[in-house]
């Protein structure tokens, strides 16, 4: 391969004119380097610029500023049909007037492939997505999951350098979606093609990706592995968007290279030895993030310094877990308790109004910049 990076977006800005006549940056100064063979996800809520970014790589939109490189080549205004990338559309965009076979053959015919080669490659692609024998059906005669596979096969049969996927599993039901997530990941590893995957589903991104770009308001908030973005979110937005977090406001009392002690007024305590994100200074007003599953509840006061008295305000049983809502001094908090033991007696759960103690381990917290 010509370049280390399959796709590179350099200083990309994309502006639109809104119906009201205002200029709006859908993508605002985004730089991303996507490595060859990587499963890369762009994650964010609708309007964050992830789909627009993908469309600029595909060539359906052109950047207002900046440049997209595919395999090291600047794309400029290269039209989609001359780019060695293929797209799986959110709506699948299957040709309803053509059979499954003809849908897959379409892209190969455009390349000028010979009939017997088309036959071989289409057959292979259909095997790959487990649709063998469906080649004579029209898309309307297939289930949603099967249509999704046709869309995938139609893009893959072209053997692109990069496959772009725009929320391809969005229309499927939960169970099928989970199956397809694992299948897609396996397929990507088997083929070694670079996948760029757009989704608003954080669990989906965490499940499949090698790296994730968390986006908001046209900007990349954080880029990293699933573990990095979950365990070490770089700001409050990411901590809030990926998974759940309890946030406490506080002030840095002392600060070393990667640890800080922070006074948290709502807990009326100074917590020492907490990991920090970058760019913090001593005395700064900060936010402390604690994941609900990283807090332990005990019913006895163990006389530990990291122990805080709390009162249960609500519990929600959701099968695998129980969500326990608590009041700590003047702060509200959520704790996620795994239901590791099968219990039926409601008294064996925490009850509303019960006094408990929370164990906050400093290494399980994170100090973040206040927005």
């Amino acid at each position, binding site marked *: 391969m010509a370049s280390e990076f399959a796709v590179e977006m350099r200083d990309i800005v994309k502006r639109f004119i809104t119906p009201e006549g205002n200029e709006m940056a859908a993508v605002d100064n985004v730089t991303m380097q996507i490595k060859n063979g990587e499963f890369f996800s762009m994650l964010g809520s609708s309007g964050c610029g992830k789909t627009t970014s993908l469309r600029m790589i595909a060539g359906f939109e052109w950047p207002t500023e900046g440049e997209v490189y595919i395999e090291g080549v600047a794309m400029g205004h290269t039209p989609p049909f001359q780019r060695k990338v293929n797209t799986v559309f959110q709506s699948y965009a299957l*040709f*309803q007037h053509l059979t499954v076979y003809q849908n897959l053959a*379409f892209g190969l015919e455009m390349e000028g492939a010979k009939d017997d080669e088309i036959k071989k490659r289409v057959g292979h692609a259909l095997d790959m997505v487990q649709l063998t024998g469906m080649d004579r059906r029209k898309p309307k005669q297939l289930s949603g999951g099967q249509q999704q596979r046709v869309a995938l096969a139609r893009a893959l049969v072209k053997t692109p350098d990069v496959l772009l996927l725009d929320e391809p599993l969005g229309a499927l039901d939960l169970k099928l979606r989970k199956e397809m997530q694992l299948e897609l990941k396996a397929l990507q590893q088997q083929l070694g093609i670079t996948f760029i995957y757009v989704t608003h589903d954080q669990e989906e991104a965490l499940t499949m990706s090698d790296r994730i770009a968390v986006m908001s308001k046209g900007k990349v908030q954080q880029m990293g592995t699933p573990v990095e973005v979950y365990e070490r979110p770089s700001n409050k937005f990411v901590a809030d968007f990926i998974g759940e977090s309890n946030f406490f406001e506080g002030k840095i009392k002392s600060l070393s290279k990667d640890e800080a002690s922070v006074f948290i007024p709502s807990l009326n305590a100074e917590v020492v030895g907490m990991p920090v994100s970058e760019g913090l200074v001593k005395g700064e007003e900060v936010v402390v993030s604690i994941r609900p599953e990283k807090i332990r509840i005990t019913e006895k006061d163990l006389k530990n310094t990291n122990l805080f008295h709390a009162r249960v305000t609500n519990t929600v049983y959701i099968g695998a877990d129980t969500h326990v809502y608590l009041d700590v001094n003047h702060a509200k908090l959520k704790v996620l308790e795994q239901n590791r033991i099968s219990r039926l007696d409601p008294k064996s759960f925490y009850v509303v109004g019960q006094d408990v103690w929370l164990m906050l381990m400093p290494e399980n917290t994170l100090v973040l910049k206040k927005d």
Partner: protein
Amino acid sequence: MLKRLRENKAAQGTLLALPTTFWLFFLLIIPLFLTLVISFGQRSPDGNVIYTFSLNNYIRLFGYSTDCPAGQTSCFDPLYVQILWRSLTLAFNTTVLVISMAYPLAYFIARAHPKKRNLFLFMVLIPLWTNFVIRVYAWMMLLRKEGAINIIIGAVANMLHIPFTPFEMLYTPGAVLVGMVYEFLPFMILPIYTSLEKIDNSLYEAAADLGANAVKTFLRVTLPLSMPGVVAGTILVFIPVMGTFIVSDILGGRQVILVGNLIQRQFLDARDPTFGSAASLILMVMTLVVTYFYTRKFGFGEEIVAA
């Protein structure tokens, strides 16, 4: 009684279809049957129908004539076959011309900004507010020797000092064709627009993504997906053009006689309803045959409902 009707879906259907069934039975099936009966009859010298079973009218339509040069009792007269053939070719030419004009316009409207589409469609429909006959007369005013077109060209020629003799445009096959195309254009634009408008933009993107340039995208995606609209439009244009007589009457005069004119004259001028009935049935059979083969090849055009 009402409760039972509420549960009986079949009875509901029958009840709903009843008014139309009555209407069609008395005003379509019975008259059609009468037409068939009359077409086998003979005209009496005073213009009445003598009910017999005779194929004379049909034989006459296809060229058998007794009005021959001296010494012959029968001969071939191509007059009516020519009229039938002229009607068929005119309907075909009109349809082809209308498609070639309507398709680009429908495409343009379908790809226009959604806010502007309704305005454009509205503009397509405006001519239909004026009576059909008046619109044809308007073409007469434009096309005749002292008409608007000749006046304007004449004025320009006069300014440029070019000698100009006004064009003879009225009462020619061309005038009838122009009139037909004008009259039936909206009936082609609307169904084609409907089918084009339904094509999701992501399909164009998918085609481009798979390597198709604009021309290939049009030929392989846009055109096939809009064919139902073209088929529906063709049915809506071809059938009426085959039968209409007003356009040819006003713009064709005595020069361009179509089967519609022939039928009209048999009933009103020649006072021969038997021959008129035979011509009507032949027109119907011709139209049915063409429509049958056409729809068998291209489908029935679901857009006919949408339009």
